[in-house]
C-alpha cells in the first residue's frame, strides 16, 4: 500500500527511470506533467488518446512523462517488453513511457491509480494532481481539468481546481 506522497505546493521528488528505448529520464526542468498509466487498465486506455493530445498540444511548453509502476510479474501486459511493443504498435508516443520497476517513484509521488496525473510548474512545485477530466467515458471532456491547470501554470495564475480524485485501476503493488 502507498503511505507516502506529495501535496499541492511540494517539490517533485527526484526520479531517474528508463523509457522503452532504455534511455534514462530525469525531472530536470518544468513545467512538466508526470502521469501514471499502464497497458492493461481500461481507465488508462480510455483516457490515453486524450492525454497524448494534451502532450502534443502543449509541446514545447510543457514536458510530459508517462510512468508505469505496475508489478509486471503478476501483470505481464505491463512488462517493459509489452510497453515497448505498444509504443511501437501505436507509431510512437509524443513523450517517454517510463518503467518504475521498484515502484519507489510511485510511492515517492503518492501515485495511486492509472491514470493519476501530477502537473508541476517551472520550479517543479506540484500545481495539479488527479484525473485528466470528469469522465473517462466522454472523450469530449478533452482532459479539461489538466488543460485548465496547465493554462494557469503557463499564465502564472493560481490553478482553480488544484486537486481531484484520481479515477482508475489501483497501481498493482508487489
Amino acid at each position: 500500500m502507498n503511505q507516502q506522497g506529495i501535496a499541492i505546493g511540494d517539490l517533485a521528488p527526484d526520479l531517474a527511470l528508463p523509457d522503452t528505448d532504455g534511455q534514462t529520464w530525469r525531472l530536470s526542468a518544468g513545467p512538466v506533467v508526470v502521469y501514471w498509466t499502464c497497458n492493461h487498465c481500461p481507465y488508462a486506455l480510455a483516457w490515453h488518446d486524450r492525454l497524448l493530445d494534451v502532450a502534443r498540444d502543449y509541446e514545447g511548453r510543457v514536458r510530459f512523462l508517462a510512468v508505469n509502476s505496475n508489478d509486471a510479474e503478476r501483470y505481464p501486459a505491463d512488462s517493459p517488453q509489452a510497453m515497448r511493443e505498444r509504443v511501437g504498435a501505436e507509431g510512437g508516443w509524443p513523450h517517454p513511457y517510463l518503467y518504475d520497476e521498484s515502484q519507489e517513484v510511485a510511492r515517492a509521488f503518492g501515485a495511486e491509480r492509472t491514470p493519476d496525473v501530477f502537473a508541476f510548474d517551472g520550479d517543479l512545485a506540484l500545481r495539479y494532481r488527479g484525473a485528466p477530466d470528469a469522465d473517462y467515458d466522454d472523450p469530449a471532456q478533452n482532459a479539461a481539468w489538466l488543460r485548465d491547470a496547465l493554462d494557469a501554470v503557463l499564465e502564472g495564475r493560481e490553478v482553480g481546481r488544484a486537486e481531484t480524485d484520481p479515477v482508475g485501476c489501483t497501481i498493482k503493488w508487489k
Partner: protein
Amino acid sequence: MGMVRAEMEVAGIDPAELRIVEVTSEEDAARHRFPGSPTIRIGGRDVQPPGPEEPIGLTCRVYRHRDGRLSPLPDRADIRVALEEMVSR
C-alpha cells in the same frame, strides 16, 4: 451493477435474481474461469467473451464498445442483447 439491474427490469427479469460473486484470490479466479473485473455472465455466457489469449486472474477487464471506445464496463447494448437472448431461449 446498476446497469445490469436496470436492463434486467427492461427485459422483465426480477433484478433480485442477479447473483454477485466476489473473486478475491487467484485460486478463486481459476475456479470461476474469471478473466477480470467486472465479468458479467448472463445465462452462463459472458456478455463479451474474452479471447483465448486473455489470461485468467485478478485484473481489470477492457471492453470495447460498439462505437469502438475502450471502457472498463461492457456496452449497455451487449447486456441488453444477452438478456433478450436468454429470455428467448
